[in-house]
């Protein structure tokens, strides 16, 4: 078959098909789902970070009008199981962990391990009755000493989070051969300790779910605000001890996830258990404070970082001791986050020697989980801050020191880093040079000099970053298959339906998957609908996480569309008296031997028994698994421009210039939106957001009054440009892209603030760069107390 049509939809920005419905408030989120006879659950959570549960008296709660049932740890036992332990760490050869990961218990029974852990569930006829009755529940606790930081938790004699095992879940060591000798021979050694603060994803829609166990059919239906319906079904079957075929799991409209809604949450399993116990639909919708207490936190790490360089600023080696605060339980695959975070610390640079020592430690804090970037932002932040420190020490411009160290385009494809990542493709110097050009870097430096003469402090910060996408098997874990599935169906009238296992929570799949199928099948995206997020209609699925939506899910759509086109071409060849190889498909028309048949005609006539070639089944309905073989690595260089007021410490972030290589861009407006949104979350980490615990492990930032989530007014002007090297890992040439901007923005902003304060000799400020911290850093530096 030949086709002479160039791609018509990929690369265009059609209006998002989902927006009309969502913008008119016609979406259906989990809290919008109502079933007659629904009752409400309220979760009672431990006020202590670490305490024995001595007694739970629920007599008063049970007596409250409308209360149907109180469930405690004593009720949740086999056949119900805890959430199975996760993979502790990849690259088993280099790991050292004395015991497997503890299972994530659904409900605390003898001991509460973090403030916010569920100790009881009150189920009542109304939401209000459940809440009121929960206040009547009397739980007697015996508070225990608290493991309040990973460092303290690793000390001998520290309080154990899990009585049966030490607090350190895993220690992972990896080194290239000549790290020590390279350091010994090195002219310049830079050492710095960095703190990456814990933050919280804050999806706009708090979690909500409704579970309905039907005793008559022995069948469970659950609607939940999650990133993957199929994954929830798999876990649900294991936890409940029933077959996946007894479960329908639905992710309806989901208002943001950012990784935090990846994987089953204890609350959803408990809703299902409550429903099974009562035989009624049970519903829950989280409050914002509940989300701060119990939905994953992320990024909490401390790092001892060393780089060895020559006097020209060429970095030869690095050493990293990286410690992560897992919180009380391993969630998703958090022990892996520390590992992926460490190995990306060589960044976009051709550093040949590196040694990594990674500690993943339990504390009496809310469990950490995935959050947009999955460890990579913490690792990139280290090398990008260190590059600026080195540049200052050696009096080299920050752009020049990056230029001297970057991996060169001819080293691609498939550049292997010392940590074991395999970068698929790119032109890192091009992104840097383009960012300098777009931002008018030389002019900014000139303006900085002029403003300093006037006592004003302009700062310019660079960050060159790289980030994984398209989760799939990685070089560290080749056995992790992570495919995605799609089905494409064409009705006799020519309408196309895509079924995908990757459901969106803001990514725009409804439009972008239609674009992919439209280019193969030459139909308008208006004639394509997309079905997702429901195990009753979508046979298989992995879900949307780790920047895999287009790379893996989109490829499955492409493959299934190609199968449809193959079959249609065979039919057309038969109809036109030609071999399929002699058929040309152009502008939705099959041509051979001087005659033609349209796409719609094939769609209709393929159902006629006398028209099909022998052996061909009726209908157009094909499915495909796409199995990725490599991760993709998007990258870019960002330039932040700030002005800092040294009197108040206030940072005015004025502009963020973003030059990204996201591979082939399917929908430029959606991709630019991802750059803005991702960078906004990175700016939040750099300047505002902070999860704070007091000395007893009490969460102090438990509301949006206490946790500074930036608003639109706190955003800079974004100037976004793209360069494009198609990824060699997949025929679409796409790269996962949603997490890159979150990785690039924090070091760009921090570098800019520290650059602005160079005249005060400020060398580092730990995020978030609040006015108080900035002001104190200036005072400390002035007093000679180098931070």
């Amino acid at each position, binding site marked *: 078959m030949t086709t002479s049509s160039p791609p018509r939809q990929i690369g265009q920005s059609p209006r998002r098909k989902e927006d009309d419905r969502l913008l008119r408030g016609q979406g259906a989120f989990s809290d919008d789902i109502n079933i007659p006879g629904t009752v409400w659950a309220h979760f009672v959570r431990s*006020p*202590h*970070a670490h305490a024995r549960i001595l007694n739970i008296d629920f007599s008063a709660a049970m007596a409250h009008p409308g209360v149907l049932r109180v469930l405690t740890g004593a009720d949740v036992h086999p056949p119900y199981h805890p959430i199975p332990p996760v993979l502790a760490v990849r690259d088993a050869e280099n790991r050292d962990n004395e015991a497997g990961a503890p299972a994530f218990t659904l409900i605390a029974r003898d001991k509460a391990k973090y*403030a916010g852990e569920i100790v009881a569930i009150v189920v009542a006829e109304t939401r209000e009755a459940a809440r009121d009755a*929960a*206040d*009547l*529940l009397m739980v007697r606790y015996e508070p225990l000493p608290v493991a309040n930081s990973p460092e303290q938790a690793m000390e001998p004699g520290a309080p154990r989070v899990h009585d049966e095992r030490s607090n350190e879940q895993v220690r992972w060591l990896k080194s290239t051969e000549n790290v020590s000798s390279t350091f010994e021979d090195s002219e310049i050694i830079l050492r710095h300790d960095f703190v990456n603060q814990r933050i919280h994803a804050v999806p706009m829609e708090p979690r909500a779910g409704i579970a309905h166990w039907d005793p008559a059919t022995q069948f469970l239906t659950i609607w939940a605000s999650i990133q993957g319906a199929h994954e929830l079904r798999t876990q649900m079957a294991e936890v409940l001890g029933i077959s996946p075929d007894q479960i329908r799991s639905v992710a309806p409209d989901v208002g943001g996830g950012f990784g935090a809604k990846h994987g089953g949450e204890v609350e959803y399993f408990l809703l299902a258990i409550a429903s099974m116990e009562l035989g009624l639909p049970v519903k829950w919708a989280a409050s914002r*404070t509940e989300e*701060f*207490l119990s939905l994953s936190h992320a990024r909490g790490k401390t790092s001892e970082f060393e780089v060895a360089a020559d006097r020209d600023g060429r970095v030869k080696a690095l050493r990293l001791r990286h410690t992560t605060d897992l919180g009380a339980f391993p969630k998703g695959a958090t022990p892996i986050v520390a590992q992926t975070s460490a190995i990306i610390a060589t960044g976009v640079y051709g550093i040949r020697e590196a040694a990594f020592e990674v500690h993943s430690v339990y504390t009496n804090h809310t469990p950490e989980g995935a959050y947009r970037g999955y460890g990579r932002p913490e690792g990139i932040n280290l090398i990008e801050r260190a590059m600026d420190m080195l540049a200052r020490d050696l009096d080299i411009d920050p752009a020049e020191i990056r230029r001297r160290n970057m991996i060169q385009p001819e080293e691609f494809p498939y550049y292997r880093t010392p940590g074991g990542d395999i970068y698929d493709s790119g032109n890192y110097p091009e992104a840097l040079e383009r960012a300098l050009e777009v931002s008018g870097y030389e002019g900014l430096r000139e303006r900085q000099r002029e403003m300093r003469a006037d006592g004003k402090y302009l700062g310019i910060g660079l960050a060159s970053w790289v980030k994984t996408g398209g989760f799939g098997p990685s070089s560290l874990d080749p056995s992790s298959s992570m495919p995605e599935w799609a089905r494409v169906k064409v009705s006799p009238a020519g309408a196309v339906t895509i079924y995908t296992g990757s459901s969106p929570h803001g990514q725009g799949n409804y439009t972008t998957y239609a674009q992919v199928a439209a280019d193969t099948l030459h139909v308008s995206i208006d004639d394509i609908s997309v079905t997702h997020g429901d195990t009753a209609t979508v046979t298989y699925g992995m879900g949307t996480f780790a920047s895999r939506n287009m790379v893996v899910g989109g490829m499955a759509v492409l493959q299934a569309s190609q199968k449809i086109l193959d079959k249609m071409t065979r039919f057309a060849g038969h109809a036109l008296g030609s071999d399929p190889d002699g058929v040309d498909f152009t502008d939705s028309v099959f041509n051979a031997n001087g005659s033609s048949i349209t796409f719609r005609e094939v769609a209709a006539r393929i159902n006629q028994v006398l028209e099909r070639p022998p052996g061909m089944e009726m209908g157009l309905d094909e499915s495909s698994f796409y199995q990725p073989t490599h991760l993709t690595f998007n990258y870019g260089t960002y330039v932040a421009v700030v002005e800092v007021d040294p009197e108040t410490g206030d940072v005015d972030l004025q502009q963020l210039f973003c030059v990204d290589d996201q591979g082939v861009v399917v929908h430029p407006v959606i991709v630019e939106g991802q750059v803005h949104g991702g960078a906004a979350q990175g700016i939040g980490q750099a300047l505002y957001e902070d999860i704070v615990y*007091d000395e*007893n492990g*009490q*969460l*102090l*930032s*438990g*509301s949006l*009054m*206490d946790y500074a989530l930036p608003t639109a007014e706190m955003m800079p002007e974004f100037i976004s440009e793209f360069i494009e090297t198609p990824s060699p890992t997949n025929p679409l040439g796409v790269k996962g892209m949603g997490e890159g901007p979150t990785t690039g923005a924090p070091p760009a902003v921090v570098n800019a603030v520290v650059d602005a304060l160079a005249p005060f000799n400020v060398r580092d400020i730990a995020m978030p760069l609040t006015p108080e911290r900035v002001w104190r850093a200036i005072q400390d530096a002035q007093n000679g107390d180098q931070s």
Partner: protein
Amino acid sequence: MNITGSHTVPASRERVWELLHDPDALQRMVPGCQTLDAETPTKFSATLSVGVGPIRGRFSGAVEIEDIAANESYKMTLNGQGPTGFVTGAGMINLSEDGEGTLVEVEADAQVGGTLAQIGSRMVQTAVRMLMGQFFDALSREASV
């Protein structure tokens, strides 16, 4: 969290001391106190209905008095729990002569947990200061009866 406060009561040290150890008077003076029962002369159980900003609820707890130097000072420890969290604390109460009256000084250290900490910590100190002010006013009124 550190809590300090002081107030001069227009009464003798002996009278103030007596009021501070009289369960009936305390129940009248402590804001929101619903019950106060002496289990022993130095151990009390109490229920309080208090609110800090949006967080309101009924707290029940135990109060113990130690290190008693009559008419001069004592140590008080407190353990309270309610639906919105818990409060634990220990403080010293000192009485000294101040002209015609008695200077009462409180110095305490307290911990809060649960919702009180998560969304109330900004307001707890202010609220405690306000409640202490109400208590001192009540103490002055009782003392001048």
